[in-house]
């Protein structure tokens, strides 16, 4: 009874004779361990204090900005946002009005731009990489593994390396500054990671399923849409959220390729921070206008996001 039982043995043993001492000791210690672990965490004042401090440090800055964005311009200039807790309470939505529709700022236009840029820049690369991932996973063609490794390794190429030559081309074609260049650039830059990730998800689907469909006479297109696509919806959702956050929050691509009229919110807000660094009533409201959509998407679909992240999905 001293050797460690393999899982199979352990199950067989406990099923045959319930009251073997070793089994009961095992169970006890496990329960005990959980209890001690839970109790230990809650009753250790140091651990709780550190955890609470971290949680506060991670929350307070955003909270301060949110409160400030609803305070009147004069109050923002005069006192800190924490004074709302000690009696200096007056709130307004004027800042948001001015930021969204003011003459010189008009963030609503850029809000529209962010949407117009983001939606195709999410749909196009996902479709392309789904098709490519399918081919890499389930179609046998010469040079398959070489090409897959090549695509995989393109992940490490920093975007910066591609910007100037691409921009030169767009200028030559007379399309520079248009949405088309932004969509194309975002789609290209998303592909290596997307193909790699979706390929991994596709490989998890049992080969017998695909084989069965093939025996029934289905072509690749049919297999892709009828068999694989429905099973991949969670994977697609998780990468979709990634790409959405990435494109919506992107500064580099928007700044480089989009003409001033078509720039996304991030570019405009960054510009405001540079030119009107002291106008906190505009900056705080503007920052929250830029954050609200990704926050909603993120919180609503957090489950898929975590799953995608744990699959090794991170792009920088």
């Amino acid at each position, binding site marked *: 009874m001293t050797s*460690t039982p393999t899982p199979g043995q352990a199950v067989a043993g406990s099923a045959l004779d319930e009251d073997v001492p070793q089994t009961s000791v095992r169970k006890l210690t*496990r329960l005990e*361990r959980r209890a001690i672990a*839970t109790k230990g*965490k809650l009753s250790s004042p140091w651990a709780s204090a*550190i955890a609470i401090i*971290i949680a506060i440090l991670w929350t307070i800055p*955003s909270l*301060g*900005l949110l409160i400030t964005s609803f305070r009147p311009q004069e109050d923002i200039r005069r006192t*800190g946002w*924490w004074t709302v807790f000690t009696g200096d309470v007056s709130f307004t939505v004027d800042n948001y009005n001015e930021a969204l529709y003011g003459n010189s700022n008009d963030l609503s236009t850029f809000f*529209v731009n962010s949407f*117009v840029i983001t*939606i*195709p820049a999410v749909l196009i690369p996902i*479709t*392309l990489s789904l*098709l*490519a991932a399918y081919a890499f996973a389930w*179609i046998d*063609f*010469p040079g398959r593994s070489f090409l897959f490794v090549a695509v995989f390794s*393109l992940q*490490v*190429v*920093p975007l*910066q*390396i*591609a910007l*100037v*030559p691409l921009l030169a081309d767009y200028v030559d074609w007379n*399309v520079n500054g*248009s*949405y088309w260049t932004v969509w*194309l650039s975002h*789609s*290209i830059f998303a592909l290596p990671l997307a*193909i790699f990730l979706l390929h991994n998800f596709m490989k998890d689907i049992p080969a017998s399923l695909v084989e069965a469909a093939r025996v029934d*006479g289905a*072509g*690749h*297109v*049919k297999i892709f849409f009828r068999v694989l696509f429905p099973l991949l919806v969670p994977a697609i959702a998780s990468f979709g959220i990634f790409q959405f956050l990435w494109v919506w*929050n992107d*500064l*580099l691509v928007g700044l480089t390729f989009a003409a001033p*009229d078509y720039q996304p919110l*991030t570019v405009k*807000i960054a510009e405001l*921070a540079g030119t009107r660094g002291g106008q906190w009533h505009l*900056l*705080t409201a503007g920052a929250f206008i830029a*954050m609200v959509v990704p*926050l909603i998407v993120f919180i609503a679909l957090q489950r898929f996001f*975590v799953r995608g992240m*744990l699959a*090794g999905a*991170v792009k*920088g």
Partner: protein
Amino acid sequence: MTWLLEPDTTTEKFLLMVVAVALFAGVMALILFLVDRPKRIPSWVVALGFVGVPLLFLAYGLLRPGLITLWQSFFNRNGTEFIGFDNYVTAFTQSEFQQVLLVTAAWVILAPLLSAVIGLGYAVLVDRTRFEKLAKALVFVPMAISMVGASIIWKFVYEFRPDQANINQIGLLNQVLVWLGLPPQQFLIGQPWNTWFLIVVMIWIQTGFAMTVLSAAIKAIPDDIVEAARLDGLHGFGMFRYITVPSIRPALVVVLTTIAMGTLKAFDIVRTMTGGQFGTQVVANEFYTQAFRQGNQGLAAALAVVLFVLVIPIIAYNVRQMRKSEEIR
């Protein structure tokens, strides 16, 4: 038809968006329709239908520009004269650029390490407590915020007002200093500490990622191992040091290398908060300045290549660690 390139109104913009998506869907549907003839078409043609467009995109938009940039890095500022390695010599020997490299190094070392340490510590502390879900959500949320947004949030925390009797501080950090009886500081201007205050923003964003991945790794540690260690008398920090950390080593490596790569390429924070002034410039932002402000294409290309070369050791380390953990298995 000017709205196809230059839409003016919101309606035109959304219309253009729909046209673009429809056009793309149409082209892809046509390609798939053409290759969807079971048995009669060789498999490589079918494969081409699936991977053709994506590979074309990648070859055109990443591979080719990468090679062009590499080539350009050996030329002068307008690309008219071949100057060998002069751009690289400039980037590594002039004191101005050495400072940039040094600051970048500080970013790449500090941001991943501290994010991972704080993320791991927090994950262990809140693991299996009553508030685990809420506690994690609080640290997780900054991941959804753009670096520009995070920069504005923190710029407001660091906001400085002159130290005079009738002026109140509006930045939280300076107010804390005042409450403690200390003089307020210009956090974003005083060198070399301003770089540290910028790195804090990156840590604030990335800790949520580190925490989530590491927390999942901790929960995946088999109970048997923990139990055995406990029977051998390991508790508290000993358990953390000898069981938790070695068990989640692969996840730790992924977290560190991923954040390091992200940090290397990120220029948003520096650009938004200081514009690279006051000795806070990093390679990624210097690239942007040289390429689009100074118009020095050769030097910009060289800096982009430097960024690429700096990523390679991180990747190599990652791959080696992955191989190692596979061998153990």
